């Protein structure tokens, strides 16, 4: 059988990073093909080439045997390639039907035929086996899982021959995942070629037919799922780095007094009675499905969001943290997963990005506000060098740095402030693999120096490698606290709620 789509010898480079090296991919009709790899391995980049967002530096794309050039997202759509990203492309202020028909509305003369579109939408959803959705409801009321299904329905309604799904199950429970795959199986029957991007091995093994494994931009394996074991997949995915990033030694941690303790934190529909303790010198990993509450929890602790009830104790004393300013004063720093929107001052220099929160202590005199620039520069340079930020000089605007270096710069911001507890949400998101291990080493060093570190991540591999202790959350509750290191599959099952033979 001929492949519906073939990518041959694809190369793609971004400044400083070779994202894809000689990548080959074959997709067949009626097959679910999984694209496997760690964060930063190149999966998204490869798919963005297919979807028309990027152009490859070298290589060929063949659609049904004929070479094609995909110059834009519109062209990709015309060629029958549809992609569903994790960041959904739906509009919250429109209804389901309006969203699905956006750009392709059915009209009678100049007016919209709302009834016709509504009926067609219901038909599309039913054909896909998606139930219980009121197509006239505005999109903003639906939970993420439903929105994903609607997004898939939208992609399907354009009758693509290739459908790419980028990490669709990160937010889904078991039931949702089953439902999703029922829909995907229907598509399989219709002869559509499906690409399923994930690093959740259990699902991949269970649902996909074949898979291509990427590591550091190159293909390390191209297999039929029934022929390989999970372990073999993991090895192709991680290669040597898996063996190399383990904590060098698990320290002896003084558990007599927690640095921070949270008690009975509750937020309606997000968190339910969450209590935990964080100790100095330890890396505590929080993990769970997307939306299980682990990131919301820390935003609440940091004062960025509010809870309905609960208490926080820092060094034994009860504290009320209603804004980030208070958290910082108590010695807590937070790095969110969204550095572009919530971390970087894009137009400012690296120096500014590192130093601005700490400038108060550089005043020439207590009352006189003039800053001693030389000292600021010296201190920032020292920290930047210690974390190995690659930049032309410290005055370079931070937007010119690569993702990994930007992340390190924001990290440095908190280092300059000498805090006691550092919380990182998805610390290596959008970071190339080289910088990733540097960041891991850095976190380990910080813990050894006695700081309390919290890492929140949906990447179970990362959590496993980094943490002294793992706290698993599901549906807003703490599912379990693990002191000894579990296997990845066991952790994954716990994250998803175990029991149900998936």
């Amino acid at each position: 059988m001929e492949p519906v789509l073939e990518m041959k010898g694809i190369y793609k480079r971004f400044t400083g990073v070779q994202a894809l090296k000689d990548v080959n991919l074959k997709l067949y009709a009626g097959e679910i093909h999984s694209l496997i790899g760690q964060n930063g391995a190149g999966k998204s980049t490869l798919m963005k080439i297919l979807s028309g967002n990027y152009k490859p530096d070298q290589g060929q794309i063949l659609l049904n045997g004929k070479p094609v050039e995909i110059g834009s997202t519109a062209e990709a759509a015309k060629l029958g390639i549809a992609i569903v990203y994790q960041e959904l492309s739906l509009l919250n202020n429109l209804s389901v039907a309006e969203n699905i028909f956006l750009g392709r509305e059915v009209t009678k003369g100049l007016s919209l035929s709302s009834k016709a579109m509504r009926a067609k939408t219901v038909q599309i959803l039913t054909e896909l086996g998606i139930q219980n959705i009121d197509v006239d409801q505005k999109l903003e009321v639906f939970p993420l899982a439903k929105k994903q299904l609607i997004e898939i329905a939208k992609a399907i309604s354009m009758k693509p021959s290739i459908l790419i799904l980028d990490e669709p199950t990160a937010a889904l429970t078991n039931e949702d995942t089953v439902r999703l795959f029922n829909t995907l199986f229907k598509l399989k029957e219709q002869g559509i070629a499906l690409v399923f991007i994930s690093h959740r091995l259990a699902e991949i093994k269970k649902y996909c037919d074949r898979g291509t494994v990427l590591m550091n931009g190159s293909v390390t394996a191209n297999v039929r799922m029934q022929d390989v074991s999970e372990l073999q997949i993991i090895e192709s995915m991680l290669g040597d780095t898996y063996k190399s990033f383990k904590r060098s030694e698990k320290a002896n941690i003084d558990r007599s007094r927690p640095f921070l303790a949270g008690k009975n934190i509750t937020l309606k529909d997000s968190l339910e009675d969450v209590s935990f303790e964080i100790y100095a010198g330890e890396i505590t990993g929080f993990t769970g499905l997307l939306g299980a509450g682990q990131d919301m929890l820390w935003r609440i602790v940091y004062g960025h969001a509010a809870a309905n009830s609960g208490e926080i104790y820092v060094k034994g004393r009860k504290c009320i943290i209603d804004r980030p300013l208070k958290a910082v004063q108590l010695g807590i720093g937070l790095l969110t997963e969204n550095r572009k929107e919530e971390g970087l001052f894009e137009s400012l220099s690296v120096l500014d990005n590192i130093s601005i929160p700490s400038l108060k202590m550089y005043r020439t005199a207590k009352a006189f506000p003039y800053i001693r620039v030389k000292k600021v520069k010296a201190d920032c340079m020292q920290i930047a060098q210690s974390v190995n930020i690659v930049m032309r000089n410290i005055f370079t605007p931070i937007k010119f740095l690569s993702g990994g270096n930007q992340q390190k710069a924001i990290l440095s911001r908190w280092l300059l402030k000498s805090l006691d507890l550092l919380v990182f949400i998805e610390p290596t998101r959008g970071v190339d693999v080289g910088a990733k291990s540097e960041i891991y080493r850095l976190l380990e060093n910080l813990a050894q120096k006695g700081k309390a570190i919290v890492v929140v991540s949906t990447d179970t591999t990362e959590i496993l490698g980094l943490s002294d202790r793992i706290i698993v959350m599901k549906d807003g509750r703490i599912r379990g606290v693990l002191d000894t290191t579990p296997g990845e599959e066991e952790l994954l099952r716990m994250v998803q709620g175990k029991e149900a033979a998936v």
Partner: protein
Amino acid sequence: MKAINSEKKGIRYLFIRSLDTYTLLAMTAILTVFFLSQNPLFLSIGNLFNLIQQNAALIIVAVGMTFVVISGNIDLSSGSIIVFTSCLAGIIFSGTGSIWLALAACVAMATAIGAFNGLLISRLRINPVIVTLSCMIWARGLGLAVTNASSIPIDSAVLTTIYQPFLFGFINISLVIVAACFVLGWHLLKNTRFGRYTYAIGENENTTEQAGVNTKRVIWVIFILAAFLMGLASMVDLARLGSSIPTIGVNMELDAIVAVVIGGNKLSGGYGSFSKTLCGLLFMCILSNGLSTLGVTDDLFFLIKGGIILAALAAQITSNNVKSSYMRAIHAK
């Protein structure tokens, strides 16, 4: 979706869902009561009729402004475009004696300016505040310059017929124009692709563009439409005053935007409707009309009007906040 939440059918939900509208109507009622106490004729048919007649231009402009705001943009040029086109019409009339030419030029020039502004905003991506702010300055200046800041009386039978009642003793052409603009605008926003795209662009222009919509063209047309309506408004004002007066249209831009925003259309875009604009217009018209029937002098007028507008906006925002936190609590994550 979960089974219909029983809370949703409750009275409290239905009330809070339209809290911003109710707040506005309450404030309008308070103002009305106050003005009524000062002037018992405030709610007379004659005065109510006056209300609409005097604010005909504002209502027409607000129709266009509704589209602009829902698409996430802003247009500060209404007052100045009205001044400029009105002066232009005056000059053409006194030069050629043809009222039709003057009126056509009025509307055509307005549309042309709208097209120009729209191009800068949609293609060159210059911030609409800057584009329309500068238009506000140069258009007014141009109007004043070409007429030497003096009024040009326009004596024309055509203009007088616009205000002559022909139906039921009070309906005249200007009212028909106002009603037509409003109704057509409502239909356009609710039932056509153009209207839907306006909402979509207001919510997220990028996503809408990805869906294949030519967002640049839609935004361009929105500004052309708004300016066209300003031209119509200018025409209506010309007819009402019988001449082109360069000092009219002062603060029209603020009045129009406030009417649209205070009614509940969000300036950030993607949310709103003509019924909201209607409520906002009601408030603004009653405010202006009431203050002038009180015989308030110029300077005090500014102070009071400005103060009330700010207070009303503050009240609206507060009620919006209450509404959002309630809505968030009701819907699951």
